[in-house]
């Protein structure tokens, strides 16, 4: 039984894989950006997405117009990001990386159980965005509108981010801070502004991800995006955390691989999909511990 015989590949699978890769790439940027300035791997990123998704669900429960729900989603996610930064990330800034990692792990569980307490394990359904889930049929391939939106939004966000990082002074400060935080401060970069900026942009990306994921899967539960975060984290480390582009590529690759194998493998094999993907992650890390797309010689600081 060769690999080609096992896999059933069609354009549908590839389109879906691209959409998932796009969403994961956005999450990867959000995680990579905060890591860049704070050297902090944010495990709680998925819970920001979850909070945004619940905002959307509440919006549709109250029969709010779609745009208002989206505003609410952004407001909730941004407020929560700033709150997390003030209460958790800032006090932890001087702690060892392992402590920070465990702390964000704790925050992730904390937020998840608050959602569990508030909304119950069955979650809520966000219906107002459903029209976006309708497919367009192009040449026999059903492409859901949201897939196109997802890929477009991802590309637009990445271009905007690249412009922000390379063409504005805040972006310059962010890049300086992510290279060497202390020296950047000595040279007059205002640390809190840079961190605040990174946290806000990363929060905005989480809100975008929340909208896309909610359209694809309108049932919002407390563990919404939890598993995605773990996969994206693996992808980000796989790509190379130290710079935004490798991190994004890593996120995209793992999303694409998951979507592709999930669609192409028959059911009996696709239930082992997580095992396959994570085994691949381990293999890649063994060969290139600094990441697949990392520049040679970038030493890890952790």
């Amino acid at each position, binding site marked *: 039984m060769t690999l080609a015989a096992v896999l059933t590949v069609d354009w549908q699978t590839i389109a879906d894989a691209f959409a998932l890769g796009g969403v994961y790439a956005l999450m990867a940027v959000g995680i990579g950006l905060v890591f860049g300035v704070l050297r902090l791997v944010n495990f709680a990123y998925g819970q920001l997405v979850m909070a945004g998704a619940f905002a959307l669900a509440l919006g549709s429960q109250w029969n709010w117009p779609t745009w208002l729900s989206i505003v609410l989603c952004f407001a909730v996610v941004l407020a929560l990001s700033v709150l997390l930064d003030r209460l958790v990330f800032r006090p932890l800034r001087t702690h060892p990386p392992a402590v920070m990692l465990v702390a964000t792990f704790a925050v992730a569980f904390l937020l998840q159980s608050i959602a569990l307490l508030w909304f119950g394990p069955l979650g809520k359904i966000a219906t107002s965005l459903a029209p976006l889930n309708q497919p367009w049929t192009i040449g026999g391939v059903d492409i859901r509108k949201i897939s196109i939106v997802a890929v477009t939004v991802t590309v637009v966000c990445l271009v905007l981010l690249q412009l922000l990082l390379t063409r504005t002074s805040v972006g310059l400060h962010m890049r300086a801070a992510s290279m060497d935080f202390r020296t950047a401060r000595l040279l007059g970069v205002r640390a809190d502004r840079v961190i605040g900026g990174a946290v806000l942009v990363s929060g905005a990306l989480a809100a975008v991800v929340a909208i896309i994921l909610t359209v694809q899967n309108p049932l919002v539960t407390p563990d919404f995006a939890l598993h995605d975060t*773990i996969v994206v984290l693996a992808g980000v480390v796989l790509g190379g955390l130290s710079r935004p582009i490798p991190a994004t590529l890593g996120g995209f690759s793992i999303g694409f691989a998951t979507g592709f194998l999930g669609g192409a493998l028959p059911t009996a094999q696709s239930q082992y999909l997580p*095992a396959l993907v994570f085994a691949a992650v381990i293999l890649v890390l063994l060969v290139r511990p600094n990441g697949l797309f990392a520049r040679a010689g970038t030493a890890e600081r952790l």
Partner: protein
Amino acid sequence: MRRFQGLLGPCALVLLAAVLGDVVSRASGVYFITALVNVSIVVALYVFIGSSGVLSFGHISFVALGVWTAGVLSVPAAEKPAIMPNLAGFLRHTTVGNVPSLVLAAVAGGVLAAVVGAPLMRLSGLAAGIATFAVLEITHNVLRYYEKIGPGLNTFSSVPETTGVWQAAIGALLAITAAFFYARSRFGRMLRATSEDPAAATAAGISIYRQRLFAFALSGMIAGFAGGLYVHLLPLNTESLYLDLTFITLAMLVVGGSTSLWGAVVGALAVSALDSFLAEAENGVRIFGGTLDLPAGTRVIVVGALMAVVLIRRPGGLTNGAEFNLRWVRR
């Protein structure tokens, strides 16, 4: 006596918990037994994380394999077809007693940790953290769907419930003793040196890779053993051996203080006590004349918040990473 004071404190605490668990009613006794099993798991985490300074999110996979080994081999042969219809080969007929099942669980955990650790221990820092996470995901995924080696999605029912308060206590004492003598051994000291100053340790001829691998295998063995104890206490399934257990056991280690055995034991017992109290309170508990009735789900909120606060305010944990010292008692 003084040489063993680091062993004395944790053991005394475990015995105290066991005696308390023995005298209380059977319903509350379960909380004490669970706490003692948690001690074994957290001590396993301590052996690796505490001595090497490398974070592992993967240890619950060794616990899970211990659960699977002891569970599959302990269910009476007559009841196996009902829970595990697809078991392969000798697993279908073989049933062993309580103690052999625990020994085999420890062996299985140790072997898996050694096999997995052989490549993984070359990594460090963030890559190591994510890779151990990947191990947890893989183990969880395989145990969940591979029905030739266990119940798959089903729960391990019909496992003889041999883990009473004394079995749990003896198990915890064994784990503590192993961890204590490892930490005092040549290997334990070498590993600790690599975590304090990797450059100096390497210069002194210590192989970081070999020391980490040894500690990883030893802690995998203790974790597997703890898994064996666990399945003899409660009917478990894959979901009870996943992220939640990873979180709560890491919380215990961090809250207690990850660099000392005393911290691991104090953390495990303190967080278990808090968790049990909150579990009772979720069902309504009478305290100080009033009734405390917390909504379901409060446990994780309180434990998560406690963990975050301890990490921010006191990164060394409750014990600040110190070992138990007899002078505290004499004073």
